[in-house]
Each structure stands twice: as structure tokens, then as C-alpha cells.
């Protein structure tokens, strides 16, 4: 796909649609492309750190660093695939997979206590101390039947998050 062109051809749209398993309609892909071009100000074909952080709503989000690590250097096709977890047509499995990937920062397929602690720290910041955080996490893990040193995998996440209504949807503005 031409990174320097500012017009999407029908082939491009279909290719992207296939890549994201039809989770976005063609209209939505066009809108996302406009948005991608708007964010990618120096037309490098990908959105850099600066460009992401220039969106204040994104920069003040506590998980922005983690998300940024996942989205850095992606071209448009991969950008759409990344966002596809937030489409209303995405499966629950897909959404839980996404959450798993956010936790699993080293990408080895296993989420350890330290990973869970890191994300909790990002979200709670200074409101509770490190000790309290560890204590809460250990206690909650034990109540759910895991130990402090157990490693969670994708199927564990599915079990925990799977049957409770997970709401993770973003509407793509189509004008």
C-alpha cells in the first residue's frame, strides 16, 4: 500500500478490510484513513510518539505509554487491525486478547504478577502506596484461585473476563 499517497483505492480498502477480518465497514476505513493522515503530520507513513502525544485526550490517559508501545511504527493497515478490537463487530475473544496484550508487555504469552502490578500502578498512581497495591493484588488473586507467582495465560483471561459483559467499543465517525 502506498504510504505516500493520500488517496485510497478500492483495492487498498478491501485489503485492509480483509486484514482486520471485516470488523470495519468500508466507510469506517475511509474515515480512519483520514484520521490517520490527520495525525501523521509529517507523512512518514506511521504515527510517531510526538504526533500521538499531541492529542491531549490521549496523552492524559494513564495507559497511553503502554498503548503507544503497541502502536508505535504501525502503518495504516496495522493501525486499523489494532483498532479493530474496539469495533462493535469484534468478538469477545478478540477484545480479551487485546486486553491480554496490553498486560503482556514483553509479548511472551504469559502475564506475571509484576505485569499486573505495573498496569495497576499506571491506573492508580499515587493514590495508594506500592505495598497496598501488592497486598490488594495478592489477596484478590488468591481469592480467584491463583497464587502470587502463577503466570496467567490467554485462557485464564478468557475465564476471568469472558462471561461478564465487557464493554469496549469505539464509534468511528463517518461523515
Amino acid at each position, binding site marked *: 500500500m502506498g504510504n505516500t499517497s493520500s488517496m485510497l483505492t478500492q483495492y487498498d480498502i478491501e485489503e485492509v478490510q480483509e486484514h482486520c477480518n471485516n470488523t470495519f465497514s468500508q466507510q469506517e476505513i475511509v474515515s480512519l484513513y483520514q484520521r490517520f493522515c490527520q495525525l501523521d503530520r509529517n507523512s512518514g507513513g506511521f504515527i510517531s510518539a510526538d504526533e500521538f502525544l499531541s492529542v491531549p485526550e490521549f496523552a492524559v490517559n494513564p*495507559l497511553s505509554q503502554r498503548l503507544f508501545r503497541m502502536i508505535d511504527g504501525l502503518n495504516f493497515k496495522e493501525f486499523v487491525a489494532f483498532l479493530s478490537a474496539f469495533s462493535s463487530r469484534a468478538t469477545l475473544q478478540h477484545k480479551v486478547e487485546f486486553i491480554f496484550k496490553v498486560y503482556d508487555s514483553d509479548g511472551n504469552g504469559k502475564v506475571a504478577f509484576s505485569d499486573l502490578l505495573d498496569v495497576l500502578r499506571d491506573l492508580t498512581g499515587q493514590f495508594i502506596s506500592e505495598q497496598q497495591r501488592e497486598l490488594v493484588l495478592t489477596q484478590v488473586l488468591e481469592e480467584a484461585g491463583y497464587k502470587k507467582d502463577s503466570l496467567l495465560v490467554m485462557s485464564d483471561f478468557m475465564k476471568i473476563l469472558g462471561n461478564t459483559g465487557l464493554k469496549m467499543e469505539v464509534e468511528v465517525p463517518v461523515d
Partner: protein
Amino acid sequence: MSNLISSSPSEMDLLDRPNIEDYLPSDSIHQQQPITKLKLRDLLDISPTLTEAAGAIVDDSFTRCFKSNPPEPWNWNIYLFPLWCLGVVVRYGILFPGRVLILTLGWIIFLSCYIPVHVLLKGHDKLRKRLERALVELICSFFVASWTGVVKYHGPRPSARPKQVFVANHTSMIDFIVLEQMTAFAVIMQKHPGWVGLLQSTILESVGCIWFNRSEAKDREIVTRKLREHVEGADNNPLLIFPEGTCVNNHYTVMFKKGAFELGATVCPIAIKYNKIFVDAFWNSRKQSFTTHLLQLMCSWAVVCDVWYLEPQKIKPGETAIEFAERVRQIISVRAGLKMVPWDGYLKYSRPSPKHRERK
């Protein structure tokens, strides 16, 4: 189990619950409240935060404030296209030269009156000031005429009284010219390079303008002091401030800076709304230079706008400067039909500090 003492966030109350059973007496006062235990699921579910982040990636209100929407092309069929071509010919061939002529004429008249007045009447300050004010108003009228500006002023004309500050929403540098042609204001502006900077240092100096530089941090205190002095002085021109700090695209207002509202003066709001049918007056300073912007305006049909002078507001007892600023912003937004957005205009130039992130 140690006592988890925590203060504000309500989600932390859930953490207290498992411990409360340990040290409360048997007839506990909390019995009517269902004790919901914190589950692993609640901790792991970061979907609300993720959704917010993804929402910001897909569309955010801040970028929308600065988007200059290109007008819908209406010349796409066989009947309208020749009309449009004719329009282009008229605009560039007839109107533009005519306007350049008017503008040059205006400058000649202005300079030929201004320079003598400035030099000769050095001693007689009051008379010189009055004449210079009238001349500045004149050249602004010429500017406005050069874009065929049709400005409708509503409300009582501002009078020069001490302890008074005017605030307005900001769309482009021409806001200043549009307002100045009616009453000579003193303005606080960012120092610009080029011919605009030259104008700023010579002519605008005479109406008593104050300069600042966005990039210098210490500048703020000096400027605040200058502002105060100006407001206190009885025969200074009324001070006009654009509290948004940057140009916004006339559909939204960004947060007002509180500097204008801390001076202990009455604040008179002014709302400016441009009619987009004729031309989009938003100056996208990232996309065009001011000269290009002016030339573009001169090649359009007209600049049509409404200016409303609104009722003067005083700070209410117990109101902070920020609340006062927000209240005035709301008055202006409602009058001009703009949407309010909770972002600081300066985020256009810099990053939100980690402080904001912590607060989230």
C-alpha cells in the same frame, strides 16, 4: 491484615470492605450496605480506560478546534461551473486589483497624516493621542473595506473608562482589525516576525499595545504587571485581550487564560462570529502565513461577521479567576453559537504535563 486507610477515590472503598469485617463489632452499622468484594475481574478489566484512549485516537475534540473545514465544492455541474469560473475571474481580475488600490490609497493617506502628527505634535500628547487613535481607526476601516467587510455591530459601543478590560474569542488576526475600526483598543499580542512585527512596533505602539512572547517563561510576570498598569491608567485606550491565547476555528472555544480575569477590573465580553458562506476567516497559523491569509481574504467575495458587545461582568464574591473566566467564556460561546471545549489552547504548542496524567 493491615488496615487499608485510603482517602478519596470511591473504587478504593471496595478495598476496605474485606477488612471491615475484621474489626467491626457484631452489630455492625454497615449491615444495610451490600458488601461487594473486589474480584480479580474488576482489577483486570481496564476496558473503560482503553476505550477512552481508543476514542481519543479515533477522534478528539482538541484537534477538531483547529480543523479548517474546506468548503463543499458546489461548482460540479455544467450549469454552476461556468458561473464559478466567472466568479473567479471577477474575484481575481476585478475585485482584487480594486481592493489593492483601496488599500494602497488608505496607506498613503494614513502615512501622510500619521508621520507628521507623530513627529510634529511630540509635545502635545493629548491631541496627538486623539489624532493617532482616529487615524488607526481609519486605516483599519480601509483594511476592512479592502476585503469588503460587512460587519454588524450589536450592543453599546465601548467607552474608554479605567478599570475595564475587553475580552473576545479569537479566530484570526483580523479580529483585532475588525474591532479596532470601531474603537481604538490597546491590545496584548504575540510579537510576530516580518512586516507585521514592524507594524506592531511602530503604529500599534501609539495606541498603547503590550507585547509578549509565548516562548519566554519569565515574560508572564512582566506582562501581568504591564497589564495592571495599563488598566489603572485613566486615559489609556481600553484594553482588549484574547484570552484563548491562540486562533480557533470559530466553531469552538478553548479554555480562557485566567490572566485577564485577575486584574481586578470589570470584564466586558465581545463575541465575534464569522459567516462561513462568504469566506472561512479562520487563520490556520500552521498552514499559512499571515500574508497568504490576508491575500486569500482579499480574493474572496466578502468577510461577513457579527460582533456583539455584551454586558460587562464583575467577578462575583467567592468566585475564583478561573471560574470567572469560564463564566465569561460561556456567555461568549452562547452568544456566538460556539461549542465549549475543556482544553487549553496552548496545547497546540506543547504537551500536557504529567500533572494532568496523574489527576486522571
